[in-house]
């Protein structure tokens, strides 16, 4: 495979950056590796969308993927729960390991994978049913039918998503669609939490929300970090700086393929980036 200097070089350095992070464990709550990708490339037909990304995500930490539009952040995110399978012509090469198990293998159960790796989308997408049914949707499909069990799960999920107090009075009467945008997004988070995932992927979860709702979502992410591993794609650099433990910067190469420039503890990426490209981006010189 022909490679350009602009992207091979940073990948090598990236390993240098990650290594001490795993060792001192200061940035993350734990030093256990939850997700590891090895030389992941994603193609849509002939077009290479993501090129050769290798990185690791610590358990119970927040990794933020930042970078300009078209740098393949969202595409890369979707390979963690194989949502790329739904896109005709999309092809993932390389390894994506969840707890050391390669999830890109054909014999991996996608259904099981997506229960362990939940996803919150850019635009809130509550189902056209009651708040209760929205949250109970995942567990019910898994065969949970006990009324009391479901009630309990719905309540804890909504509490964790910081929505319970606002909706507890008309859980069954009010449609999920009748909530405000920020509430809808928290409902979607509750819906994911109800399936009891280990990892939560968030694809620009606050980009369609107003600033107050955005802050609530960010607070929520900080709280969820205690129990879950979170990977978030964001366009908003302040957001990445505020919520994440580790930041990975992606950009687009000359051939329009997205690649990873560098990854490191968020504090360092935003103060002393190793790469010129990262510095240009975070200081607003491009992107």
């Amino acid at each position, binding site marked *: 495979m022909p490679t350009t200097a602009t992207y091979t070089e940073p990948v090598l350095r990236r390993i240098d950056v990650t290594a001490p992070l795993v060792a001192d464990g200061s940035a993350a709550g734990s030093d256990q590796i939850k997700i590891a990708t090895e030389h992941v490339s994603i193609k849509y037909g002939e077009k290479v969308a993501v090129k050769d990304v290798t990185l690791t995500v610590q358990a119970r930490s927040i990794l933020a993927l930042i970078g300009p539009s078209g740098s393949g952040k969202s595409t890369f995110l979707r390979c963690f*729960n194989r949502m790329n399978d*739904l896109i005709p012509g999309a092809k993932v090469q390389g390894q994506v390991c969840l707890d050391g198990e390669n999830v890109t293998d054909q014999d991996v159960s996608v259904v099981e994978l997506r229960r362990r790796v939940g996803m919150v*989308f850019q635009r809130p997408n509550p189902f*056209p049913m009651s708040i209760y049914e929205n949250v109970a*949707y*995942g567990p019910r*499909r898994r065969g949970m039918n006990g009324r009391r069990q479901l009630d309990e799960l719905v309540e804890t999920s909504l509490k964790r998503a910081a929505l319970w107090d606002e909706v507890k009075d008309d859980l069954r009467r009010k449609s999920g*669609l009748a909530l405000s945008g920020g509430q809808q997004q928290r409902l979607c988070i509750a819906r*994911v939490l109800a399936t009891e995932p280990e990892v939560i992927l968030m694809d620009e979860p606050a980009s369609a929300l107003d600033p107050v709702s955005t802050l609530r979502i960010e607070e929520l992410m900080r709280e969820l970090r205690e129990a879950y591993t979170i990977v978030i794609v964001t366009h908003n650099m302040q957001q990445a700086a505020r919520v994440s433990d580790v930041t990975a910067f992606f950009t687009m190469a000359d051939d329009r393929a997205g690649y990873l420039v560098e990854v490191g503890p968020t504090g360092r990426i935003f103060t002393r980036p190793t790469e010129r490209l990262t510095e240009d981006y975070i200081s607003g010189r491009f992107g």
Partner: protein
Amino acid sequence: MAQLTNTYRATGLRAAPSLRQRIDLPRRVVFGAAASMIFIVVLLLAFITWQGLQLFIKDGVSIGQILSPTWQPDSTSPNLSFGLLPFIAGTVYVTALALLISTPVSVGLALFLSEVAPGWARAIVQPALEIFVGIPSVVWGWLGITILVPFLSHTFHGGMVLSLPIAGDVFRVPGFLTGFSWLAGSLVLSIMIVPTITSVSYDAFRAVPQELRTGSLALGTTRWQTIRHLLIPSALTGVLTAIVLGMTRAAGEALAVQMVIGNSPSMPAAITQPVTTLTSQITLDMGNTVFGEPWQDALWTMSLVLLVISISSVVLVRVINKRRMGA
């Protein structure tokens, strides 16, 4: 430029409209077209209602008699009776059975087209459905007479009895006599309404946002679970609308049904027996009657009943869709 602006200002916002602007021909044409349309519909409704009520007003037939099963409209017959029940029941039964057969097939086809079919399959099935709609009903009736009716009479002339050990015979159907029957009518209708139900429910399924499907799949559900628990409930009002539209089409169909149904003006006894419907009886009898005689007035009353059926289904569709808006 400045001058132009000034000229414009001079005529100003309050300039008197020219003759042409005042007449505004296109607006009048469109308005006239709409008004005449409404006028025609109102006139039609009024006329059918008036004619339909003549049986009660002029001929003094009671509502009770209308609801009796005896149909002896010929003025020479010794006991004249205008019982419309066999026709109303026939229409309801034939339509219901047609819907029962057609709905699963059509909704399944719509689901296949919207959720499963690859692009090329959709490109074949959709035009095929459009051609389907375009086939004249006489052709369907003709196919029914030449293929379906002989098939039924040759294949199933023995009766069918369903016996259970203790309960005895719980279900008994006599065999076909000629093949002209309730079942034949329903089968022909069920094929004819497939395109209606399919295309309307297809639209309902397509109207469910893609984000909801991805949202459901991302929660670790299978495609079937997503269809069963998200897509069908979300599109339910649209599918119900499709079924009501299919029902209206089936209840209003005259020719094809009349050709295969046997037209026996008695209460429907079994799906293997000849029955009759409102529409087929009207087309059969209208040539034999004289304007103004009670027999013809009874036919008008049948038209009125049909009209009431179709108006109530329009209302039903409205109610269903209002519910959807409210949800």
